[in-house]
């Protein structure tokens, strides 16, 4: 286990460094922070002074070295936009995004898995075709359109659910959660659904493909030949095997969900990291962008590692012997 962890750590370090380099390269080009930071009628001298003080006139390698040097110490600097420490901003926004991603994942699994099983058991049945068709329409529609449509239906027309925000949040230490209030639950539903739609379809298809494959396998045939009831074969035996790759993909996709939360969060005004990032991009808030990107990279590596470990725990063949 130890060499594994060490390898993972090394890998995490490399990934984050690369991401850091890439994001750093990116800042040079997304725009000029000075414009957003100064008054509309700032004089040329004022702008120049600001640029100088931000170190934007230094040679690029110097800037990169400074940036990485501070980043490895966990210091991502201070946001250009809010003048608050970036780590605070990220910590403040993290709960919202993670709760959204978590809710979306749960929703995707809760709907995707049963649908996948149902469509696998009758791969050519009418129900299977309908479910697959509807889910495809869902993923064929751009997220931002789906989001607005859901708002129009559930918030404006039916007035069942709120169209924006997180509802009431409760602070548990530094973590602010929306799961402890009724309005929080109501608020998370639409964004989570919007975000989950793609994953849901993915999981459904994956479960379906895996189930079809597994249902043909020898051990399922053997189970059948021993007269075990279909329900227990499908849901107890086959599903457990089919869920292994689903676990991997779901784990990996969480990274993608965090990224896709950018769109969902800006449609639903969900006060998470995606919203923070998109605003940072508009403002050319370099420290926030850098921290966000490196954070997402880190989450990705961590998820990868977590998936591997879980895999090893769930699959007895991979468990450490002795």
């Amino acid at each position, binding site marked *: *286990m130890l*060499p*594994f962890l060490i390898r993972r750590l090394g890998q995490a370090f490399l990934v984050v460094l690369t991401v850091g380099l890439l994001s750093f390269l990116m800042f040079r080009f997304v725009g000029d922070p000075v414009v957003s930071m100064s008054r509309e009628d700032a004089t040329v001298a004022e702008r120049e002074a600001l640029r100088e003080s931000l170190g934007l006139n230094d040679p690029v390698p110097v800037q990169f070295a400074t940036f990485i040097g501070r980043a490895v110490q966990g210091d991502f600097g201070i946001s250009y936009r809010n003048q608050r420490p970036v780590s605070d901003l990220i910590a403040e926004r993290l709960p919202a995004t993670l709760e959204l991603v978590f809710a979306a994942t749960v929703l995707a699994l809760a709907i995707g898995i049963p649908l996948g099983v149902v469509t696998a058991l009758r791969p050519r049945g009418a129900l299977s075709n309908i479910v697959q068709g509807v889910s495809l329409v869902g993923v064929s529609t751009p997220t931002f359109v789906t989001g607005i449509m859901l708002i129009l239906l559930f918030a404006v027309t039916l007035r069942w659910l709120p169209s924006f925000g997180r509802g009431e949040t409760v602070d548990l230490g530094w973590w602010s959660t929306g799961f402890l209030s009724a309005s929080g639950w109501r608020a998370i539903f639409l964004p989570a659904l919007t975000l989950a739609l793609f994953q849901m379809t993915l999981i459904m298809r994956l479960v379906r493909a895996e189930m079809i494959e597994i249902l043909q*396998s*020898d*051990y*399922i*045939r*053997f*189970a*059948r*030949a*021993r*007269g*075990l*009831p279909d329900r*227990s074969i499908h849901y*107890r*035996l086959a599903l*457990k*095997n089919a869920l*292994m790759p689903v676990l991997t993909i779901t784990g990996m996709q969480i990274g993608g969900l965090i990224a896709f939360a950018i769109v969902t969060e800006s449609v639903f005004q969900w006060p998470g990291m995606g919203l923070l990032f998109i605003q940072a991009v508009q403002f050319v808030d370099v420290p926030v962008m850098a921290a966000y990107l490196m954070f997402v990279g880190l989450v990705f590596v961590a998820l990868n590692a977590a998936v591997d470990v879980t895999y*090893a725990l*769930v*699959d*007895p*063949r*991979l468990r*450490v*012997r002795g």
Partner: protein
Amino acid sequence: MRSIPALDNRLRIRGLEVLYGGAAAVDGIDIDAVPGEIVAIVGESGAGKSSVGAALLDLVDPPGEWRASEMTLDGVPIDYKRTHVRGRDISVIFQDPQTALNPLFTVESQLVHMVRHHLGLSQAEAKRRAVEMLDEVGIADPETRVRAYPHQFSGGMRQRVVIALALACRPRLVIADEPTSALDVSVRAQILELIRSICRDRGMACLLITHDMGAVAAISDRAVVMRHGKAVETAPTGQLLAAPTAPYSRTLIAAVPPVDRKIDRFALPDTGAVVSDPSLERWLRANETDAAAVPLAVTGLGKTFGARGFLKRGTPVHALKDVSFEIGRGEIFGLVGESGSGKSTLAQIAAGLLKPDQGEVRLLGKPFSAATPDRALRRYRDGMQMVFQDPFSSLNRRMSVLDTIMEPMHGVPRAEALRLVPALLERVGLPPDVMTRKPHAFSGGQRQRIAIARALAGRPSLLICDEPTSALDVSIQAQILNLLKDLRDDLGLSMLFITHDLPVVRQMCDRVGVLHRGSLVELGATEAVFESPRADYTRALLSYLPHLPELQPAS
């Protein structure tokens, strides 16, 4: 041998038919079995043997359907709508223990699930039963082993677990579909013995589906010979082996390589004289390299595989340890040994596909060792060709027969090649007009012939055959073996012949080496090794050999 059983049949089948999309895979078969009796169903691949088993379990794959005019168990018609028919009345033992067990559940949970479902036992009783069952199938220390996962058992033990699962509810009839063909010789004998004793002790009837005549001879009471969905002969085993009456039965029996003596060729009625084109013969011989060079010499060969797999756990495997031997011109050298003994590793090193860690190989005088640079390998492989075990993966499924065979013909003009390929195909017993087809259009035996033709097209002096027939059924195996022998005789090919099938070795090889855990424990002339083995391991191996005393002497 016991006499034909009385009328108190346990199983009685009349007029069983299995249809796949209109084509009859089983075409009206009658089978009977009495308690305690093992009825073997034999026949070539595709004869419909497994389909009989599937029909009995009502598990014929969807597009297929089955019907029978009569199907009774202990005189009562089998009603598949009842829940406990499968598993409690009729059970099954599958072929491959590697895939038949769900890897994610412990043996205990699989057993408990099974007995609780069928017998409605309490959790505690079911657990006790699980332990009993493991004990019964001969797994030592069942109390602890019961909580293990399938991957923690060896192949033989897994097959025992499969049997435990099949028999946990004490069925009256068990169908064993190739229960031993995935197992090593030593394990195979034990498993057969286990099935035999359980049937006898419990009075359970068993349908043993197999193409292993050794197994048939060893444990079955009666045998049904199937061909093209029909039973061509049903007779007590001893009688069938000694004096088959139906022509097909005779061919089948003749194709079984005898263990106890060497025969020249298998007496197969339908393989006539091989057509041979003299110009092909000339072309094939034109490449003969320096006659003095020893085709293959292996000295002090060693190979260790690092630990592999997830998280790099496990210990290194010494696949080969200090192996030395030589193959003379025109000689067929046999290499035997149980699974994992290093046979394929040796073949791959000899073929220059894998680098040895220690020692050296000389192929027609060209050296190959750990120090040989990769770019020298293409030269090294000149004059050598290989025939692989699995005829399905050894042909590129997207390449036509013509392209496949032409591949090793370097520098042969296309027009010439277009003339040679049909001749080669004829040489291996295939009609030349199959050239344009792709592999999926051929049966296993036919594919193996194509693979041999491809090997010949490389005009080798040395042919390495890694288990060339173990994927084929006996009658096809006999044909391929005959073909290889003819090629050796006609072309003077030298061969490294790898197999785990001792009878085959006896029929094919001039000399034989026995590998055990990577070491060559025995080396000598085949007859000498068979008659008076020196190594203990060889003796043990030979003792597992099935005895087919009733087999009539082949002509």
